[in-house]
C-alpha cells in the first residue's frame, strides 16, 4: 500500500541573488516524502540542506519548480500549522521560563490553560527536563536548551517534524541518547520526520530514506532506502548491513565532491 505523499518537490530550484553574484542553493531538486517517513538530508556545508527545509516550511520561496506540502502550497500548510520546526540553534526566548517557552506555540494556537499544562509536562518529560520548568534558558546548557526547543516543536503535536541539525552542537553521548529517543518517538507516533544532519551514522541509524546532497549547485545526488527494523537500537551500528549503507552514503558524498576539483 503506497502511503500518501506529504512532501512533493518537482524540479525545485532556488537562487539567492547576492552582491557577489547568484548563489545556486538548490538546483532541480526532485523529492517525495511519504506519510510516516523518516527522511534525512546529508551533505557538506553549503549544499542547500537548510534551504530545502526552509522552502518546505515556507520560510524561503523557490525560484523555479513546484512543491506541495500535504497537497497544498507550503504557505497554506504553514498557516494550517502543518509542521513543527526545530532550528539549528535553540532560539528560545530568554524572557520566558522553560515551561513558558514550551507554551509559546500553544498560546498562539489557542490551547486552554489545563491543556497547556498537561502538554508542557508531557513533552518536558519526553526530553528528560522535568524539574527545569521554572528555569530560564540561559541557566541551561546548550544541549538542554536544544532539547527544550524539541519539546516546544512537539508540544502542539504536528504531524510533520522538520529538524535542522538539532543535535549538531551536542556531544556524542547525549547525541546517541537523543537519537534513540527520537527513533522511539517516531516509531510510536508515526510522525513524518525530515531531518538534516552531516553525521553519516546518525543519518543511517535514524532514517528509512537518506537523501545525499552536494553543493554548488545544491542538488540531490543519491537517495538510499534502508530496511532496518523499527525497534532497532544503537547496537545495529556494528552490523554489516549498517556499515554497507554507511559506505554507500560515504561514496555518494565523495562522488559529489569530485565535481568541483
Amino acid at each position, binding site marked *: 500500500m503506497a502511503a500518501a505523499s506529504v512532501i512533493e518537490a518537482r524540479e525545485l530550484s532556488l537562487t539567492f541573488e547576492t552582491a557577489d553574484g547568484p548563489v545556486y542553493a538548490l538546483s532541480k531538486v526532485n523529492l517525495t516524502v511519504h506519510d510516516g517517513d523518516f527522511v534525512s538530508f546529508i551533505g557538506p556545508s553549503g549544499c542547500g540542506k537548510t534551504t530545502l527545509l526552509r522552502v518546505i516550511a515556507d520560510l524561503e520561496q523557490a525560484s523555479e519548480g513546484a512543491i506541495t506540502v500535504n497537497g497544498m502550497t507550503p504557505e497554506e500548510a504553514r498557516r494550517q500549522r502543518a509542521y513543527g*520546526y526545530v532550528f539549528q540553534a535553540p532560539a528560545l526566548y530568554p524572557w520566558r521560563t522553560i515551561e513558558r517557552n514550551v507554551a509559546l506555540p500553544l498560546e498562539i494556537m489557542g490551547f486552554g490553560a489545563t491543556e497547556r499544562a498537561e502538554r508542557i509536562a508531557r513533552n518536558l518529560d519526553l526530553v528528560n527536563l522535568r524539574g527545569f520548568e521554572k528555569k530560564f534558558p540561559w541557566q541551561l546548557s546548550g544541549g538542554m536548551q536544544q532539547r527544550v526547543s524539541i519539546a516546544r516543536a512537539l508540544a502542539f503535536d504536528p504531524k510533520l517534524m522538520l529538524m535542522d541539525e538539532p543535535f549538531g552542537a551536542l556531544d556524542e553521548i547525549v547525541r546517541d541518547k537523543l537519537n534513540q529517543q527520537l527513533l522511539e518517538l517516531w516509531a510510536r507516533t508515526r510522525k513524518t520526520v525530515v531531518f538534516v544532519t552531516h553525521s553519516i551514522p546518525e543519518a543511517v541509524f535514524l532514517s528509512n530514506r537518506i537523501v545525499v546532497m552536494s553543493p554548488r549547485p545544491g542538488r540531490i545526488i543519491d537517495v538510499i532506502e534502508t530496511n532496518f527494523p523499527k525497534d532497532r537500537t544503537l547496537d545495529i551500528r556494528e552490523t554489516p548491513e549498517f556499515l554497507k549503507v554507511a559506505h554507500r552514503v560515504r561514496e555518494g558524498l565523495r562522488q559529489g565532491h569530485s565535481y568541483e576539483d
Partner: protein
Amino acid sequence: MIAALRHKRFAAIGLLALSGLLLWLMAHLVTARPGILFWIGVLVLWALVWIGNDALSGIRTSSPLTTRLRNLAVPAIFGLTLLLLWQLAVKGFGIPLVLLPAPSDIWSKLITSLPTLAADFVQTFLRAVLPGWALGSLAGFLVAVLCDAWGFLRRGLLPLGNLFAALPIVGVAPIMVMWFGFDWHSKVAVVVVMTFFPMLVNTVAGLQAAGHLERDLMRSYGASWFDTLVKLRLPAAMPFIFNALKINSTLALIGAIVAEFFGTPIVGMGFRISTEVGRLGLDMVWAEIAVAAIAGSAFYGIIALIERVVTFWHPSYRSRKDP
C-alpha cells in the same frame, strides 16, 4: 595572615576617618587668607584621604553586605572630599559669592528656603517634567508601533521626526508659551516635543532587534502580527525602550527648566534660576541646581531599577542564579 589582613583593613579605615575628620575641621575653621602651611596641610590630608580610599576600594570583602557598603562608601568619600576641598578653596581664597558660593552657603540657603524650593519643585518637576516625559515617551512609543504596522508611515514620519529632533529648544519654548500660555501647560508641551523623538527612534530600532530565527519561529506557527509583536518583538525591544526612557528623563528636566526662561508664572526652578541670577543671589541658584541634580538622579535611578527588573533576561543583567 587573617590578622594581618584585619590590620590592613582597620588601618585603611582609621586613616580615612582621621584625615577626613581633620580635613572637615579645617574646612569648618578656615578664615580668609590662611598661610602656606595651611595649604600644605590641606594637600597632605587630601593625599591621605586619597590613599585611604584607594586602600578601601582594594579591600577584599567577605560578605555581600560589606561589599555593598564598600561600593557605596568609596564614591561617597570621593564626593565628600570634593565638597570639603570646594569649601576650603572658596573660603580660603575668599572667592566672592557671585562667582562661586561655598557648599556651606548653599546648604544654609537650601534649608532656609525650603518652602520656595518645594513650590518650585512641584511646579517644574511634578507639573512639567513628569507628565511631559510620560506623554512624550508614550506618544513616541505609540507612533513607533504604528510605523511598524504601516511601512509607509515609517518612511514618511522618520525624516519628519528628524526635523523635530533638530528643533532648538530656545526656538520651541517661546512658541509653546504663545500656544499654551505661561503656566505649566506650555512646559509640558516643550518636554513632549523633546522626548517624543528619542523614544520614536529607539522603539523603531528596538522592534527590529529580535533575531532571525526567533522571527522564523513565529512565522512557522502562523502567528499574527499582533502575537509576534506582543510575544517577541516588544520584549526584545525593551532594552531600547528603557534606554529612551533614561535619555528622556534627562532631556525632560533640561527642557522644563530652560522653557521657564521664556515666560512663566512666578514659580518654578527655571524661573527662580533666571531671576536669582539677575539679583546676584547665586546661593539660591546653586540651591536650585542641587535640588535639580538630586531629583534628576533619583528619577534616572528609579527608571534604571525598573529596567533591571523588566529586562532581567538581558545578558548585561542576568546571572546563572535564579533571579
